[in-house]
């Protein structure tokens, strides 16, 4: 009888959000179709901007709406008291929220990353030398999402979550600007081959470590938490 109810919590959150997830999947699909139709018909710079918007916006919006409904509003609307009356610990609760949010956003993120790679490098939109920077941009979006999710799980506060969205968005943009102008990255960005020098490897590794660290810290905080409601 000591088995965890995380699978049931995940299923419940998925059932509650499935229509919203489906809508964003359809919007993303339309975005991909639009990019395919625009390819070769508009200048590359326009396609890059429109493509980024069409791919990233539905994924980011879906991720934010999902964390709002599964984490923030669960507290605001007092449904959390119902969930916590069930055999669940704060750590299991946080783990289930991390899994559903990272899972759904992660699938979106992987899909848009694959599609972005296909158009950028498979269809020759970018030179191959841009590959490390594109990976940094995509990982930057993922880290920002994990950061926002960690903040929302930390306090489950609407105000703090909205503030974290603004700060992580601005912070990620500023960070990517800085990275783009670092010589070991900028010198090879238009090159014919991807160059994985120590700076590029270091930046990508740091991004992965920050994402993993934020998840670990969130779980650690939740498992040490004594007051939950």
């Amino acid at each position, binding site marked *: *009888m*000591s088995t*965890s*109810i995380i699978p*049931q919590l995940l*299923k*419940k959150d998925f*059932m*509650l959000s499935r229509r919203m997830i489906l809508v964003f999947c359809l919007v993303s699909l339309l975005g991909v179709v639009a990019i395919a139709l625009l390819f070769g018909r508009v200048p590359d710079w326009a396609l890059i901007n429109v493509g980024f918007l069409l791919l990233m916006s539905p994924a980011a919006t879906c991720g934010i709406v999902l964390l709002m409904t599964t984490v923030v509003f669960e507290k605001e*609307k*007092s*449904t959390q*008291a*119902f969930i*916590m*009356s*069930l*055999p*669940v*610990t704060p750590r*299991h609760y946080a783990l289930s929220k991390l899994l559903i949010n990272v899972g759904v956003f992660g699938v979106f993120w992987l899909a848009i990353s694959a599609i972005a790679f296909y158009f950028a490098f498979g269809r020759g939109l970018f030179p191959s030398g841009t590959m490390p920077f594109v990976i940094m941009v995509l990982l930057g979006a993922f880290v920002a999402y994990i950061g926002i999710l960690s903040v929302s799980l930390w306090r489950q506060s609407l105000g703090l979550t909205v503030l974290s969205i603004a700060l992580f968005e601005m912070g990620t943009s500023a960070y990517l600007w800085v990275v783009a102008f670092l010589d070991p990255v900028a010198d090879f960005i238009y090159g014919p081959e991807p160059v994985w020098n120590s700076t590029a490897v270091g930046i990508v590794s740091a991004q992965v470590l920050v994402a993993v660290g934020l998840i670990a810290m969130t779980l650690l905080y939740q498992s040490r938490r*004594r*007051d*939950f*409601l």
Partner: protein
Amino acid sequence: MDVPLAIACRKINKRYPHFSLSDVDLSVEEGTVMGLVGPNGAGKSTILRMVMGLIGPDSGSVTVLGHRMPDEQMAAKRDIGFVAEDMRLYESQSIAFHMDFVKSIFDSWDDTYAANLLRSFDLKKEQKVKGLSHGQRVKATLLLALARRPKLLVFDEPTTGLDPAVRKEVIDEMMNALESESHSILFSSHNTLDVEQISDYITFIYGGRIIESCNKEDFMDGWRRIRLSNPDGKPLPMLKNIKEMQQHGRLCSLTVDQYDEGVAEHLRQSGLKVDAVERLTLEEIFLSNVHHAKANLSKEAGL
């Protein structure tokens, strides 16, 4: 032989910026109903949340069904049904969605009992939560807690805001849940009628402290209001069990705890005329207790 305890709180303390729970001792025997009575902000919900493992005490210990809380809350909550006045279900979903969800977690879920509860509460499985009235929502939450057949039920103000008819339905189902002698209920309320109706034991709480806790009969038997005439204006004797005193001219009213015949006799010997000795309702006992506790707290604070 000692009766096994469903809940044992020992010297629990919890400090918040504007409220603290001090040295709370609370025991609920298996198979009994404990009513926790106190005004708003007395600490009832804090105690119940500690019992559920949702808040950890700063010091002291909470043991529920043999499990240390909050560390062993997962095992304990397998056998606890919790309903709180401020607990909400998912508005966009139906009662059936919630029933299926809870059933998927508890092997002990009783389909027949759930169907009976739906019928007796006049609820429809297909109803969306957002379309339910407050009373229906409380009944739906109660159904979800009862149909899993828990050993312990913890209710935080379950009847607040309910009309008398729904309140009776809720109280009746709480009583039905006690068919088995091993089931126990801890519930908080500021409705003393509900508490008087179903409790075996009653605990009064005020200002984060337990001010009195004993079985209902002792409460009802131990408290009296003594109406006196004092034509000669004699000083009233200082008895330690006088909790409240009101004097209007020659007439005087004393509220007394731990009453026995010796009290009236003592008053007569002091030259006072005992006009009547009346039993108190639980509400009157509660109000007197609160009044007394308030006076003591003010005294302690040097006010």
